[in-house]
């Protein structure tokens, strides 16, 4: 068989119908501040790990809300909990705590 190089590429479109509301509410119950992120990007701008490996709390929150918790975990994998992001967050989110809670809730299979 000749390989023409065609394959099925998984859709990269966000499908909000796949959003896991229950799990998100579980996280929000522990961590109400997850709701108030306004995606300003301050956390990502100062992230020490982010200079070397894709790491972004802003993107992680976005990914959760966009039904892609795997990406969220990936985005936080290299976090060293240094806490610089909590210093710059304009809405005063306890980012370290939030990162730990995200990991806890979404690592559960």
């Amino acid at each position, binding site marked *: 068989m000749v390989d023409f190089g065609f394959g099925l590429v998984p859709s*990269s*479109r*966000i*499908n*909000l*119908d796949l*959003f896991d*509301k229950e799990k998100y509410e579980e996280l*929000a119950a522990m961590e*109400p501040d997850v*709701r*108030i992120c*306004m*995606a300003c990007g301050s956390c990502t701008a100062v992230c020490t790990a982010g200079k070397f490996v894709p790491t972004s709390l802003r*993107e992680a929150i*976005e*990914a959760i*809300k*966009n039904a892609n918790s795997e990406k969220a975990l990936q985005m936080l994998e290299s976090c060293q909990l240094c806490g610089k992001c909590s210093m710059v967050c304009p*809405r005063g989110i306890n980012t370290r705590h939030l990162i730990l809670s995200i990991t806890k809730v979404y690592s559960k299979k």
Partner: protein
Amino acid sequence: MKNNILIIGGGPAGLEASAQLQRMGYNVILIERSAKLGGHLAKWDRLFPDRVPADEVLGGLLRAAEGVKCFTDTDIRAINRLEKSYNVRLTNGITVLSDAVLVASGFDLFNAVRKEEYGYGIYNQVMTNADLEAYFKTGNDKRIENPKKIGFVHCVGSRDEKSGCRSCSKVCCATAVKQAIEIKQAFPQAEVFCFYMDLRLFGRHYEDLYLEAQKEYGVRFIRGRVAEVSENYDGTLLVKAEDTVASKPLKVTLDLLVLMSGMRPSASVKELGEHLGMMVEEDGYFSVRSGISAGQRSPQPGIFLAGAATGPKTLPETLADARAAAMEIERYLTEIFPDARNYKQLVKERW
């Protein structure tokens, strides 16, 4: 005897200016082309940012304007400029000799049918901000039956050059956030999404409203303009946008989509402009003497403007504008108008 002042438009701006000018002792004649006073305010349920009942505000305006001569269902048939005053013939047969004219012709809501890609008037479950407000007021709307997923589309007929509406309508962001909260109050289990390009929550307490929507009501804000809506076989809607924060196309199935129709110049502007010989700018709103220092004075001496006739305004801005117009009229009628001999010179210097 104090001067006659004709006020065109019985919405909040016209009512507020009437009350102020009457207090100053002027003889105010207020005309309204529809059957009812109050303008859009009469159709609204609650007002941002504090969700004050619209009826209360309108009631206050109407009480303050008691005693003003009001003609509803009345329009202008013709206006003649005399030496200094205006001779105005109304459609009810009455002629008014008016020393100053205040144009408070307000705005129209953008006709959402024109954005065909959103399906208003085609798909059953698509409604406008005004429809939702009517539902909050009456509790009746066949489209709203325990919706589980609701979307709000910001900037419908705003910031849209192709629809001939370049500018921001100023009030829809705050209205959308307010209505998102109210629909969550009505249906706590529902998921609510707001599709925005920028959130323009500039006023006092507006940011609090935004924070409240996120924090207390879990409203999801998605940066991206809804580009396409289609109807599923079961009557739900498939909505497509880009999440421009995530840089990815996005789709979601919704039970209800609310279009935030923006402010457009009132349809009466064209006719009024012709009657009064007043200029309209490219955006369709009346031009003013100076946008910064004389926003209530038209280029025509003796003709004043207030409220959304000169561009989108919030309700408190409109009321402040009406009070300012009343002050400007008073200044004109005491400092310029009475001096018949030097009138032309004074107009040149002070108008």
